[in-house]
């Protein structure tokens, strides 16, 4: 009833190509962004429920935003281009460690050449973006096998990236600035002279990154490049016949995806954890990101957000609820229960809606548009 397009006419090409052609969608998005950018920080700074403590902001929203960004990156590769990857965690790690190296100053002694490469510490913002760029380079490198192999075989090849970088960041002390324990500390978050310290500032920073990159990604997948990716995904031989170069399409997908994942990794390390070790980006993280994309919806930017929310927040909710209700269960039982419930939920969801939450929502939208005529 409320969701009807009657009376909304498109009179030029620009309107026809808008990201959100329906007015109600635009309004909903504006409200959502308003809440995210103004409402949440306001509530948090005045400590109004549910932001009475930092918990919601720091332990839920912050990781949600960063993992949603990483899920967008994974979705571009897996969902839009059809290249199954198990190396997302590694690309997050590359983003994190490159950003760390750049923000603390790079020094490569080339004794046999008689000189050393020395880059002074870069500003944090530049380091994070350059960290994404490094991840993009690594992504292209590990994307090259995708020209010969696909599907499960490619998944195994990207697994090699995961193991290689796990090993590298654990074993090569240069990456951790020779930290005795192998755990590194993020430098102070300095953005154009402003130090980002409080949870609200950190949240806004991540929100900014996520919003900008989500909009860019959305436009990218709607455009020429995105159509090439999807053509490759749907049938690579047919795509090649109509003039799409698989080399270009696949490697750009790897590059864009790794860039976004790399930035997310840098944010995860710098903004959320503050101090980390390679275990923070282990194979578990890669699998988690893949699950987010599958649950949320392959080939959907919005689905990445929903998937991230489901995979990240659901277990925490299942963990918190019994305690809040005062049920006398031991943490052990709660954790086991959480695994059972979470696993069954995923099974149920995938049977009921194999294309994820995003598909569920678009079905709902279609129904609303036709309401009350169910044809």
């Amino acid at each position, binding site marked *: 009833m409320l969701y009807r397009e009657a009376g909304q006419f498109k009179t030029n090409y620009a309107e026809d190509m808008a990201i959100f052609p329906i007015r109600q969608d635009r309004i909903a998005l504006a409200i959502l962004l308003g809440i995210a950018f103004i409402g949440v920080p306001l509530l948090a700074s005045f400590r109004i429920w549910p932001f009475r403590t930092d*918990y919601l902001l720091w*332990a839920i929203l912050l990781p949600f935003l960063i993992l949603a960004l990483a899920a967008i990156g994974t979705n571009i590769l897996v969902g839009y281009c059809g290249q199954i990857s198990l190396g997302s965690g590694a690309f997050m790690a590359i983003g994190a460690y490159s950003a760390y190296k750049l923000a603390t100053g790079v020094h490569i002694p080339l004794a046999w050449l008689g000189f050393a490469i020395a880059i002074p510490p870069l500003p944090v913002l530049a380091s994070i973006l350059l960290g994404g760029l490094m991840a993009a380079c690594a992504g292209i490198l590990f994307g090259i096998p995708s020209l010969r192999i696909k599907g499960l075989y490619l998944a195994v090849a990207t697994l090699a990236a995961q193991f290689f970088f796990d090993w590298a960041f654990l074993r090569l002390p240069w990456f951790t600035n020779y930290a005795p*324990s192998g755990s590194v500390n993020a430098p102070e978050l300095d953005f154009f002279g402003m130090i980002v310290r409080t949870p609200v500032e950190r949240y806004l920073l991540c929100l900014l990154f996520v919003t900008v990159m989500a909009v860019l990604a959305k436009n990218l997948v709607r455009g020429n490049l995105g159509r090439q990716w999807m053509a490759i995904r749907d049938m690579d031989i047919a795509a090649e016949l109509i003039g799409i170069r698989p080399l270009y399409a696949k490697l750009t997908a790897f590059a864009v995806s790794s860039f976004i994942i790399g930035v997310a990794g840098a944010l995860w390390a710098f903004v959320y954890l503050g101090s980390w070790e390679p275990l923070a980006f282990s194979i578990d993280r890669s699998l988690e990101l893949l699950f987010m994309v599958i649950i949320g919806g392959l080939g959907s930017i919005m689905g990445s957000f929903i998937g991230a929310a489901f995979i990240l927040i659901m277990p925490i909710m299942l963990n918190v609820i019994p305690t809040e209700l005062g049920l006398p269960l031991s*943490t052990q039982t709660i954790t086991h229960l959480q695994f059972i419930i979470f696993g069954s939920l995923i099974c149920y969801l995938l049977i009921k809606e194999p294309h994820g939450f995003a598909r569920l929502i678009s079905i709902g939208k279609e129904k609303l548009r036709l309401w009350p005529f169910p044809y």
Partner: protein
Amino acid sequence: MASVARNVLILAAALAGAALSAPAAAQNEQFIPILSYRTGPYAVNGAPYANGVVDYYNLINERDGGINGVKILIEECETGYATDRGVECYERLKSKGPTGAAFINPLSTGITFALTEKTATDKIPIITMGYGRADSKNGAVFAYNFPLLGTYWSAADIAIQYVAKELGGFDKLKGRKISLLYHDSPYGKEPIPMLQVLAQKYGFDFTPIPVTHPGVEQKSQWLAIRQNRPDYVLVWGWGVMNSTAIKEAAAVAYPRDKMIGVWWSGAEPDVTPAGDQAAGYKSLMLQHGAGKFLVHADIEKYLYAKGKGSTEPGKIGEILYNRGMTNAMLGVEAIRKAQEKFGKKPLTGEQVRWGLENLILTADRIKELGFEGMLKPVSISCSDHEGARYGRVQQWDGKGWKVISDWYTADESLIEPLVADVSAKYAAEKKIQPRDCAKET
């Protein structure tokens, strides 16, 4: 009619309000969060430790009615030894209770690293008894970190002292080969710089050998050990890695009595899965070992006799259980000390930190607490957040742990320069102005 409806509405609203505000905590309670892991790859070691912690807090509530009348309120949060879950737990629990968390025991070196900066901002002490970052002993830089009763650098030094004694003097170390089999995480890497310093000083050949998490895959490491035949293997493992190391040592016929585990590699779950093969295996003791002391009698009387214990009665007095208890006791004593200054009421983290920094446990006090035989005197100060640097060596004879050495004290003159160096680097990186401990009271 309208007024009746309005009255009903007001009544309903009042009831709803009452229902919402009902769970508000009693005001005379001190909240202590417990980060534990009873599931996941390290659960076998995490669970007995957590039981010890919970039992001691419950004992204080049951026997004494709290700390000077202030009841202890606890809540457990399962981390599964994962750093990001640990951070989530910390955020969830840090502001519960009337005054927020008194202190936090992360029980993981990784979580300790991730929380170090946050706890300093939130002003909540982070107690890492026998683990954590060794440089945080320097309270001038790490104002809120307390690696009580020994760090991994102390442990490394004690292990080498023991080896020297067994060989017949420090001069006999020259030219010997000592390997470190370590868990490839901040926990396992922490002793390396100290062992390098020691290797240089005494002239032994030091080889670090990493084992990846969780540590069940050690074939190639033991192949290297078999080829290299080190005189001693130090084991810095946790959970299943320890028992696997013992089994692999047996498989390559490496003598178990030449293996020395750190105190986290020397509990019952580490040796029992290896069966007879574990006989002869040695490990350091974090002061206490296995066994029951006076305080255990109270725990049995006030908790287990009433069915309020958290584990099977047979497990009381196991090493990790005792360690959990000791950890909880130090926290309780810190709160007690802080109450002397700030009054007998729930305290904030900042106040408890004062208690920790001024905590002195004399032999008499330890006896009073029922910990005699488990602990040597502890004295914590602003500049020394470690408090004590003692250790002994124990050996598994196939059935139980036997103490086989005298007390060792870690060599301050070797550790101090390293602590100063690494913590100064941290202070520079984080732009921390070190406190002047001479001026603090």
